[in-house]
């Protein structure tokens, strides 16, 4: 069966004063219906730009999608017209942004905004849209939802606003929801509520979820599969279990080593990854992670590793057979 979404070779470049920057470089990933894919990486690794690219929301200029294809339900989203794309956005693919405090328009009521997609894509009347907004707000467990329809965003807390954003995303029962760091600006307790809600609602509606995050704890709890990004490229993809149990790429291993775990030996220090995230305008010719890698070889500096399978649907972009060399590393 064909995948719901298949992104391949997606490349987005931004013009800057210091020349073009490939914020997203030949990125490929896919999502099955009902599946949760986490895209993980540090700031500037191209997670958000990948998501915006597949929604065709990259501001041009300075940004431009230069290559690749985004097959969604058998249709290449990069080849359809802007009007056709508008019909996809919010209806079949919805997006949730990272800043609930600013993602809602302060001068419109919450109900008007949550109901807007229904008006846009289903041609609903104001009355019907507000009615639906009430149902949706109740569904994301905003207490007293019917009366909250007429509230303004400033009367909502951060968690409630993010719930409202989720309600808005669910309005047209999309096949795919992209959540771009949906919990970054929220308290830890609210974070887990929001993510559990999101997960539960996607399970109920059968929507697939792309969860963009830098929080590996979130990934472990909510993702089925994981793609790890570094410097605009996907460096490792696999099931969440495999990525945790047997990370194959040195970068992924480095990430795992610097996350505190409840089951680790007390007093053990966290191991940070040496060096700085790379400057995208001056990437090395070989592997982008090579300057920070503990297992770097001559080949890593000259040649770019491709994303190759290592078995069981697990892919990595690294020349080094990490498992075989584990003993050597201090």
């Amino acid at each position, binding site marked *: 069966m064909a995948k719901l979404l298949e992104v391949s070779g997606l490349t987005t470049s931004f013009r800057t004063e210091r020349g073009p920057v490939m914020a997203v470089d030949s990125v490929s990933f896919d999502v099955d219906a009902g599946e949760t894919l986490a895209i993980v990486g540090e700031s500037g690794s191209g997670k958000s730009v990948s998501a915006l690219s597949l929604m065709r*929301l990259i501001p041009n*200029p300075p940004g431009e999608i230069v290559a690749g294809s985004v097959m969604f339900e058998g249709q290449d989203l990069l080849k359809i017209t802007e009007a056709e794309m*508008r019909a996809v956005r919010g209806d079949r693919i919805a997006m949730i*942004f990272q800043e609930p405090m600013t993602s809602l328009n302060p001068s419109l009521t919450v109900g008007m905004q949550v109901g*807007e*997609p229904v008006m846009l894509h289903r041609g609903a009347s104001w009355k019907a849209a507000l009615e639906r907004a009430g149902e949706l707000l109740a569904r994301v467990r905003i207490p007293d939802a019917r009366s909250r329809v007429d509230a303004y965003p400033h*009367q909502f807390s951060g968690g409630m606003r993010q719930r409202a954003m989720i309600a808005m995303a669910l309005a047209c029962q999309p096949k795919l929801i992209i959540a771009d760091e949906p919990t970054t600006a929220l308290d830890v307790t609210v974070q887990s509520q929001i993510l559990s809600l999101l997960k539960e609602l996607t399970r109920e509606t059968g929507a697939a979820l792309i969860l963009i995050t830098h929080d590996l704890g979130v990934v472990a709890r909510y993702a089925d599969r994981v793609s790890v990004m570094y410097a605009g490229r996907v460096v490792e993809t696999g099931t969440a279990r495999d990525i945790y149990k047997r990370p194959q790429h040195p970068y992924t291993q480095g990430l795992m080593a610097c996350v505190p775990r409840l089951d680790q030996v007390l007093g053990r220090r966290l191991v940070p990854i040496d060096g700085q995230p790379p400057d995208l305008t001056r990437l090395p010719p070989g592997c982008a992670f090579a300057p920070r890698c503990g297992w770097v070889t001559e080949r890593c500096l000259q040649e770019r590793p491709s994303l190759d399978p290592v078995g069981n649907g697990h892919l990595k972009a690294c020349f080094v057979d990490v498992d075989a060399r584990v003993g050597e590393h201090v």
Partner: protein
Amino acid sequence: MSAVVQAAQVLPTQRGPVVDFFIRLFREKPLGAIGFVVVLLFLFCGIFADVIAPYGMNQISPANRLKPPSARFWLGTDHLGRDMFSRLLYGAQLSVIIGFAAATLATVISVLLGIVTGYLGGKVDLVIQRMVDAWMSFPDLIILIVVVSVLGPGMPQVIFVLGLVFGIGGSRIVRGAVVSVRENMYVHAAQSMGASTARILLQHILPNILPPVIVLFTTRVGAVILVESGLSFLGFGVPPPAPTWGGLLSGSGRTYMYMAPWLALAPGLCITIVVYAINVLGDAMRDLLDPRMRGSR
């Protein structure tokens, strides 16, 4: 019982934003509030001039020429024996009509130009705003005089020209507001929902640039009245015998300044007070409507 009282206190007050605005105006901006009262008075005089005025606009009384202020003629009479108080009231009417019509036209032009160039950006922005630059490099009065000379004097022409001149200049302010609102997350969120450009402009940008637009409109009313007085003074405005304030000042006011100083004093003071009141009100509104000042009581 006490729980109910507490809950009632915790709930935010259910005042509308407009009521809230006026309460804050009177509480925090006494000068602005005075300006507001003066503007209301001015509007009242303008709208009900026909009812309040004791004499007709051009009612001549040769027997009572150049009379000083008295119980019969509150502000004296001019060289044709016309009652100055009545003429000032009709002048207020003209000022209200020209001020509001031209400021409305100016605001519509500013919003249209500003919202399109600000939101679309890129080449459209560059081309249109360079044209605005070119337009703004001419002194307003020169453009006004040239256009009125071509079209001939008259109220519709004056409204049109003032609206155009102030509208094009004001588009810069609207554009600035749009550029800062455009980058807000909710605009991106609306795009990600599949909203069209027109819808984003109307639903998501326009309501959020309203505060500066309201202030722009208010200050434009004052500026239009002032410039219209200037034009009428120079003889390019609404032609006599229509009693515009600027015309009153230049006609009988200037000619008989030494014999009957009240003829110049009254319209001069009217222009000064009304324009000052509108500007003070505009200032107060800008402070109160500025989101950064909100809650800083």
